C-alpha cells in the first residue's frame, strides 16, 4: 500500500498569512514593537500598583537583611588606639555606634564627619577591618593657649580652633592666657612673643589683643608692654634688650609704650614719680 501523498501546496489562508508576514512593516511590528510594547505595559502596570511595590520593597528589605546578617559581615569590636578616655566618651556620644552590627549598616562616612565635628578632634579615620573590627583613628587638637573670651575660658590650639572650654584658669596654669576679641586669629604671634620673653616668661600674666590689631603684654606687678600693630615682636625684642642692659622691667615702671618705635614712652608708677621728683629737687638743691 502506497502512502497517501498529501497536497504540498499551501492553503489560501496560509499562503496569505505568509505573504502578510513577509511585509517588512508587519515583521518589524511583531518582532520589535509588540514585545517592546508588552514589556513596557507590564513594567508600567506593575510600577503603578501599590501592593506590588510594597511587596517588592519587602522582598528587597528581606534580601538585604539576609545578606547583612551573614557572620562574615558582622562587626563586633571597636578599637580607638589614639583616643583619650575623655575623647572616647565624646565620640561615643556623637557617633552613635551600637555594636555588634552588620558592616552594611555602619555608615563609615557619617561616623567620620560626626567625629570630625568634635572640637577636640583634628582629623579622624574610620575603617572596618576584616575580622569584624571597627577602627577609629583620631588626631586630637593640642591646646596651646587659654583664651578668655568674655566670661568663658577656652582652650585653643595653634590654628585658633577651639579645643575645649575650661572651667578655671588654674586647671591649665602651664598655658599662656590671651584676652581680647580676635585674639584667636593671631596665635602664631603669641608663640613668637613667648620665645622672645623666654627669660621672664614666668612673669607673664597674659596677652591682651587691643582693638583686634595689636598686642599688650601684661606682666605681674601690673606692668604692661604696649606693642605696635606691625613689628610687635621686634619691639618686644628691644624691650628685652633694655631689660638686659638697664634692668628695665625690674624697675618701678607701669607701662612701656612701644607703639611708636621712634619715641618709646615709659610710664612710671605714682610712687616712682614722687621719688623721681624728690631726687631731682635734691640734685638741684631745693627743698621738696
Amino acid at each position: 500500500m502506497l502512502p497517501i501523498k498529501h497536497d504540498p501546496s499551501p492553503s489560501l489562508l496560509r499562503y496569505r498569512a505568509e505573504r502578510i508576514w513577509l511585509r517588512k512593516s508587519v515583521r518589524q511590528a511583531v518582532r520589535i514593537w509588540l514585545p517592546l510594547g508588552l514589556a513596557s505595559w507590564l513594567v508600567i502596570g506593575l510600577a503603578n500598583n501599590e501592593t506590588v511595590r510594597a511587596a517588592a520593597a519587602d522582598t528587597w528589605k528581606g534580601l538585604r537583611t539576609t545578606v547583612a546578617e551573614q557572620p562574615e559581615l558582622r562587626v563586633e569590636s571597636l578599637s580607638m588606639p589614639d583616643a583619650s578616655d575623655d575623647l572616647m566618651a565624646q565620640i561615643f556620644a556623637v557617633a552613635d555606634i551600637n555594636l555588634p552590627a552588620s558592616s552594611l549598616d555602619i555608615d563609615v562616612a557619617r561616623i567620620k564627619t560626626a567625629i570630625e565635628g568634635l572640637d577636640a578632634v583634628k582629623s579622624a579615620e574610620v575603617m572596618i577591618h576584616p575580622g569584624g573590627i571597627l577602627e577609629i583613628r583620631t588626631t586630637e587638637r593640642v591646646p596651646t593657649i587659654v583664651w578668655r573670651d568674655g566670661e568663658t575660658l577656652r582652650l585653643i590650639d595653634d590654628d585658633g580652633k577651639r579645643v575645649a572650654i575650661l572651667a578655671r584658669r588654674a586647671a591649665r596654669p602651664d598655658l599662656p592666657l590671651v584676652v581680647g576679641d580676635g585674639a584667636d586669629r593671631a596665635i602664631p604671634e603669641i608663640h613668637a612673643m613667648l620665645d622672645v620673653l623666654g627669660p621672664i616668661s614666668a612673669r607673664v600674666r597674659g596677652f591682651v589683643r587691643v582693638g583686634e590689631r595689636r598686642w599688650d603684654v601684661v606682666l605681674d606687678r601690673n606692668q604692661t608692654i604696649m606693642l605696635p600693630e606691625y613689628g610687635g615682636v621686634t619691639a618686644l625684642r628691644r624691650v628685652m634688650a633694655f631689660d638686659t642692659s638697664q634692668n628695665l622691667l625690674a624697675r618701678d615702671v607701669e607701662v612701656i609704650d612701644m607703639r611708636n618705635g621712634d619715641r618709646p614712652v615709659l610710664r612710671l608708677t605714682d610712687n616712682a614719680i614722687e621719688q623721681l621728683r624728690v631726687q631731682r629737687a635734691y640734685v638741684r638743691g631745693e627743698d621738696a
Partner: protein
Amino acid sequence: MSVNLFEMQREMRRRREAAIRRGVVGVLDIGTSKIACLILQFAPNLINEPGSDEAVTVPSMGAFRVVGVGTTRSRGVRFGEIAHMDEVEKDIRLAVQRAQKMSGLRVDDVIVAFSGGRPRSYGLSGEVNVENGEVHERDIGHAMFACDIPPYGHGRQPLHAMPVSYTLDSRAGLADPRGQIGNRLALDMHMLTVNDTVVHNLLNCIKRCDLEVAALAHSSFAAGVSSLVENEQELGAACIDMGAGSTGISVFIKKQMIYADAVRLGGDHITNDIRQALQIDGDVAERIKTLHGGVIATSSDDRELIEVPNPMSQWEDNRRHVTRSELIGVIRPRVEEILEEVRDRLDASGFDYLPSQQIVLTGGSSQILGLDDMAARILGRRCRIGRPLRVMGLPQAATGSGFAAAVGLALHASHPRDECWDYEMPHDRIGARKLRRTVRWFKDNW
C-alpha cells in the same frame, strides 16, 4: 491600427516599469509539466548628483539578481493552457511560496509566460509622410498607427506587437530611424495573437493568488530571448522550445522576433506513448524516459535491458524487461512527428529566406539523447541544444534548458526595448484622451 492595441501595449509597458521601479518582480512560467517562479531583485542604483543632498535610489534597468526560485509540478495545465483552475492556482501558490521562502521577499507583481493559446503571427506594415523632413518619435508613432490590422478574428487578442524594421524612402532595414532625414517612413511590425479565453483564465488564476500581472508573454518568445545568443538573434535563428505540452517556435532576426508559433505536441505525448506501449504508470514512464530515453538506436541498445516495474505484480519473479531499442522505437516516431510539424511551421514562416538559419533546441524535452542529430536531419539545418543565458544569482538547478522561458522573461523584463509604445500617437491629440493621459501622468508621478 486600432486604438485598442496601442492602449494595451502601453498599459503593459507601464505596469512592467512600475513593477521594476518597486524593485522586486516575480517571474512565473506556467508550463505543462512544471510551474517555475523566479524572484528578481533589481539592484538599486544610487544616483548621487553633485547638487542634491540625499542619494536617490532608482533601480537600474539592466542589473537584476535572481534571489528566489520555486519550482513545482504542474497538475492542471494541458497543452500550455489551464485545464483545471484550482490545481493551477494551488501550484502557483506553492511555487511562489517556495520562491518567497528562499528569498525572504514578498512578491506582488509577476511577469507571466504561458505556452498555449494557439499563437498566430501577423506581419503588419504602415507608411506615413515625415512631417518635418526629419524623423521624430511622433512620426514613428504615426507610422505605427498607420499599420492596418488584419482581422485576427473574434475571441483572440494581440499579445506582442513590435516594430521590426523601418524603411525611410529607399533605404530599408533601419533599426532606428530617429533623427534621420527622409520623406516617407514605412515600418514593418510583427504582431502575435492568442486566444483570449486562455489569457483571461490565466489572469483570473493569478489574481486568485493575490498577485498582480505586470506583463504577459508567450513562452516561445521568452525561450528565444534567453536561448539565442546575440549573434543568432542578430543574423536570424529559430528557437524551438520543446515543452511538455506544446512545442514553441520563434524566429528572430535583427534582435526582433518576427514569427512565433506553437505545435500542440510535447514531452507529455512521448510519456503517454511509453505508458501505452509498456503498460506502466505515468510517473514510471516519465522516469524511464528521462533515464533511458533516446532517439537513435545503436546495436548495443538491443542488449541493454531496462527493468519495467509491473504495477500488478506482487512477487519478485514477475519483473519485466524491455530492451532500450524497444523504448527508442516508442519514442522516436513521436519525436519525428513533433519535428516534422515544426518543420512545416518553419517552412510556412519563411525561415528559409533568412541570411542565417541556425536552429536552437531548448526546453525540457530537448534533453532527449540524440535529439540534435535527429533534428538536424529532419529540419535540414545545423541544430544545437540551447541552454538559457546565465543570469546572476540563478542556482545551478535552475540553469537547465527547462528554465529557458523563465530566464527569458527575466531578461525581457530587464531589457524590454519597447519604448516605441510611448511615442505620441495621433489619437493622443484628441482632447478627452489627452486629458485622461495627463491625469494618469499626474497619478503616476505624484
